[in-house]
């Protein structure tokens, strides 16, 4: 195993683990739910990406094989992380709107209204004739 590959692996490992830890620390430390979404969805995904690149380099340097699973995992995660973050933010807006929880007590305040007559999509029905709420039907 060459020294350069060694150094690359160590740096990527420490960087990835550090980012994952910072993301989870942000989940604990930040004051409101919308702000808490930032840490895990960005920092942790980036940290896992660095760990997976480290794993590709490690298996190439130590065993001389290229593994494609890491590329698949990171591709899948980079596609799905924004989608799940969007869904969680919609859940939070929905629960704020229905009054299940009170307004966020953050510096940033509640999220701004969308432009025009539009409304955040949490109450929108997926098709024209489905009811907008399933609460009392």
């Amino acid at each position, binding site marked *: 195993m060459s020294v350069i590959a060694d150094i690359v692996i*160590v740096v990527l490992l420490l960087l990835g683990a550090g980012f*994952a830890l910072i993301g*989870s620390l942000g989940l*604990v430390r930040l004051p409101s739910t919308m702000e808490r979404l930032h840490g895990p969805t960005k920092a942790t995904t980036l940290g896992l990406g660095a*760990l997976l690149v480290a794993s590709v380099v490690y298996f190439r340097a130590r065993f001389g094989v290229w593994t494609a699973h890491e590329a698949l995992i990171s591709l899948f995660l980079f596609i799905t992380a924004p989608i*799940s973050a969007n869904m969680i933010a919609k859940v939070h807006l*929905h*629960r704020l709107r229905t009054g299940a929880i009170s307004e966020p007590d953050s510096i940033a305040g509640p999220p701004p209204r969308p432009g025009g007559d539009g409304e955040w999509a949490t109450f929108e029905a997926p098709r024209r004739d489905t009811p907008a709420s399933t609460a009392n039907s």
Partner: protein
Amino acid sequence: MIDLALHLAAGAIALAVLLNLWRLLRGPALGDRIVALDTMVINAIALIVLIGMIGGNDTYFEAALLLAMVGFVSTIAYCKFILRGDIVE
């Protein structure tokens, strides 16, 4: 050097899982708990990858890939259930 870095990384990820667990148990809003679970799945994938590297065995990556898929689907299903009161309409 790599061994030390691998074990340091595994320790950091384990600490991250503990922090997620704290937020999962504590989290005032339901959204917090969903975020904590989602992050926990991602950290579990990181731990599985690290264990695969420590053991020098690339069979673990299939488990990591499956966990990534199941974690995403479960997060979306949970969110969808809270938003619509139903998962498949």
